[in-house]
């Protein structure tokens, strides 16, 4: 094998080995477990759930909450970040309150919104939105602050109005940094959504996961975990591609992340 081929193969050695060992071990021991299943059974369960529609509907429920919550958090967070990034006094003034609110763990907001909205989409969306506002705000603020002063001088020379300056100069210059924040918070949104569903929101993949556990169906349970992992990977890959397409030409765009 050439070095090049070896380099291409190496990342897959460990996963393939683990799957093979798990398969053989469960077969040889003839284990009947409520907690573990051979990879072949996990794959079969994944296929089964995929073909009977349960997986699709649960996935759509989760993604609907995750994406709506993420979008609200992004709009509010980026807007606040723009304001704070442009208005230094306001930024300094809000420092302590923002630190305190940010320190609250995301999941702890579940009871707050549960009292207001009960269980369901609204509550999940609200928790996700409220949590993702802060990282978006902080990172947008940093990105705006990082815009070179020379660009602002250019805008002054061109006689742009305040709004024009934000729209034509600040926003495009800060966009790579803002996009990093959006990527990060999309990942958070999925994590928070799944966690809320596991804790008690009776919908989506998290809830399906807990149902499979209670039904002592380790094949489906592990299949769902694999599926959730794949969704996480897919979201990450999609946003990475968009990031590369949009900002790949800007040298060092990732340095600010």
């Amino acid at each position, binding site marked *: 094998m050439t070095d090049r081929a070896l380099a291409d193969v190496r990342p897959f050695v460990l996963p393939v080995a683990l799957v093979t060992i798990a398969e053989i071990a469960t077969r040889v021991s003839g284990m009947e477990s409520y907690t573990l299943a051979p990879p072949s059974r996990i794959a079969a369960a994944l296929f089964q759930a995929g073909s009977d529609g349960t997986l699709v509907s649960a996935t759509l429920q989760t993604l609907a909450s995750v994406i709506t919550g993420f979008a609200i958090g992004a709009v509010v967070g980026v807007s606040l970040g723009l304001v704070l990034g442009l208005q230094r006094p306001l930024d300094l003034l809000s420092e302590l*309150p923002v630190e305190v609110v940010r320190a609250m763990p995301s999941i702890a907001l579940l009871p707050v919104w549960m*009292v207001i909205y009960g269980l369901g989409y609204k509550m999940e969306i609200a928790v996700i939105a409220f949590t993702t506002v802060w990282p978006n705000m902080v990172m947008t603020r940093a990105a705006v602050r990082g815009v070179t002063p020379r660009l602002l001088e250019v805008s002054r020379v061109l006689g742009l109005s305040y709004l024009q300056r934000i729209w034509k100069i600040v926003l495009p210059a800060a966009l790579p940094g803002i996009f990093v924040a959006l990527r990060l918070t999309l990942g958070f949104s999925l994590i928070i959504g799944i966690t809320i569903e*596991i804790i*008690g929101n009776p919908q989506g993949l998290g809830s399906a996961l807990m149902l499979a556990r209670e039904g002592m169906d380790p094949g489906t349970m592990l299949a769902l975990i694999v599926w959730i992992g794949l969704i996480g990977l897919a979201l990450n890959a999609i946003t990475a591609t968009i990031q590369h397409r949009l900002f790949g030409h800007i040298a060092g765009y990732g340095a600010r992340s």
Partner: protein
Amino acid sequence: MSKARVGWYLASLLFGVALILVWKAIVDARLISPVFVPSPEATLRSLVDGLLEGEAAELFRATLMRMIYGWLLASIVGVGLGALVGNSPTARAYLGPTLEALRPLPASAIIPVAIAFFGLSDRMVLAVVAFGALWPMLLSTMHGFQRVEPRLFEVARIYHMSRLEFAWKIALPSALPEILAGARLSLTASLAMAVAGEMLVGVDGVGQWMLNAGRSYRSAEIFAGLALLATIGVGTSILLGAAERKLLRWRQLQR
């Protein structure tokens, strides 16, 4: 700290107080039902009552300890494993991609597996906290070791350092900023997972207290719980910041 900085801190504190007054005004004017959002006084009363007469102090301690134990466990395993993988190009080539691929998996997704192994118990919550806190620690340590300045390898060769010596004396200190950044993420994750675990399992803790309050619409207790968790969050973040300044002082001196 400069004088202007202290002035801004005070102004920021006043701004915080003003926000609380706005909150009070909104609740007093019945713009939001007090069933949903309690007034600041009601929150404070619940907090003080809980701490002095109720079990809140005990629950606070339980959540804090759970978070710290999980975080310590994750730190030891994460830094150890991360150093091992990051220090060896071979291990990195074989293990790195798998570890990276597992990163987007929500830590909470392993809760059912943890329940299968440990039951609905305190140990299960601890396992979930540790698992959630492990990834940021592991990956940042790995990257820190990976990004050691190549010239330092030459230095190590000149001094005839063993691999272990190199890891301890050169790679670890130079990876420290990244490890500490990972530790910060990992602290946030461990608090979130501790609260999530408590809510799910119902073991004593602030998370379980808040969820029970939510189920019976005692919103003042929910907000009191939020205040306790924010205290933990801010407190641990300040402590870590102090540790960071102390551990990284040599870097500031360099500049």
